């Protein structure tokens, strides 16, 4: 994974998870974007909360 910092003049390369609108707006600025076709995990919010507490 990229270990350099964003703060210098490095081009942004973005993964967009959520509102597709934001991916389109980044593309309009010439930014490389991969949009994730996200959906809630099976089991819903409770499972997501559990997964959020577990290690990777």
């Amino acid at each position, binding site marked *: 994974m990229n270990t350099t*910092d964003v703060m210098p003049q*490095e*081009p942004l390369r973005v993964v967009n998870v*959520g*509102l597709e609108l*934001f991916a389109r707006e980044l593309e*309009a600025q010439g930014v490389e974007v991969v949009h994730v076709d*996200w959906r*809630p995990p099976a089991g819903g919010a409770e499972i997501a909360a559990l997964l959020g507490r577990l290690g990777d």
Partner: protein
Amino acid sequence: MPVRATVWRGFYQDSVVLMHVAAEVRALPGVRLAAALMGTPANHELLSSAGLATPDSKNATAADLVLAVDAATDAEAEAALAAAKGFFDERRRARESTGRALPRTLDGALKQMPDANVALISVPGDYAKLEALTALRRGLHVFLFSDNVPVGDEVELKRLALAQQRLCMGPDCGTAYLGGVGLGFANVVPRGRIGCVAAAGTGLQAVASHVATLGEGISHGIGVGGRDLSAEVGGMMTFFALRKLADDPSTDAIVIIAKPPAPEVMPQLDAAIRTITKPVVVCALGAAVPASAPATWVTTLEDAAEAAVAGIRGRAWTPRSFTDAAAVRSRVAAIAAGARPRGALLGLFTGGTLAHEARVILEPLVGPVNIDGAAPGSAHRVIDLGADEFTRGRAHPMIDVAARDSRIREAGAAADVAVLLVDLVLGRGAHPDPGPSLAAAIRDARATAERDGRTLVAIASVVGTDGDPQGLARQIAELRAADVHVLPSSAQAARSAALVLDPRLASRLLSA
């Protein structure tokens, strides 16, 4: 009226897409009401209260899409549901025509783009932490637009970010600028020498737009989320971002846009600023200005931009009430010469920071202002329509303008409202052309008020730049054509509203 609902199982769509499909269906013949929502508990309540719940819709889960319509006839209801299906079919065809399969997870996306460096996350709050954790663990900076994330989760995310030397912008981060790229809701501004650390999305938008108007630009604008300077979070991301901007050779001055910091964080904030050799401007709306602060403290977003620009130009700066006091004087005199507006102020805002700034400016001038449960019972009210309670199950009012427009029309019939104060926020991500519908709503409200023998004065400010897709000049012209008094900043709009409510304030506000 027949109510029909259909449920698409396991068919997730985001709130902006749902807004568009609901709007298309609502415009069909015979359709009285239409809703397109995911089946969350809050959305089931909305469907029930709108009379749109059906036995089918009640079984939908948060992963299922509900489309419900109330139409004049069975045939029109069925046609509306078919049209919605057509909308989604069309989207699927358009997506498939690109020949590129969309990943279903963040890790799937990283297989397509292994050198990604930022994750922009705007999933519902219940799922935001999981996605942000994954992104940080993969070494990405995170822009976390999602709200409704518990503060304990925010602390955990920001600790991980600091350990990884990554930015965790948010939760509840509306706007950021990284190296000239705007993320989230962002006005089109030039790159320049002013860096911002912002706890407020519309606050950053307003400062960046004012900076652009003054002929300068933004190096980086780092969002930190509204709670960063709270006792719980302890300013973790603010201090990290300040160090980054202090070391950044493209940044010559720094603006901190914050909520009032927790008292226990203030000494650290002071200490952090003292290590910076560049000019630092602090705008913490509603905070008392410290007596011996190591920075220039200002009280409005406009002043923050002006002080920073003066800082990099090496010029002295003093705040002023109005850009064009003479124009305000003549406008207020014209209003005073006509039928006096009798009643109170109603502020209807889409930008939360702008709503709070309005209250901070208005209260010393006209007395208590009811906002977010503060000063209940006061005649003057300011409402932040972007607050969680108004955005459940629908897109933000900067995108979905219908809710505010209908409140403006209602205000026309409210006997106690004499002055209507509104913002209009332009930029990427916002509604493509909000001025005409806002102007139409204000015209309607004023017509209703006049029919009832009342005067309704409308005052506005527009956050935007000439580079924004909506066009600043065109949006202002739309409002002015509806006889809306448009001021160059939200602060000036609030002061102008105070003058209309109490012309005696002229000696304080228009003396210069």
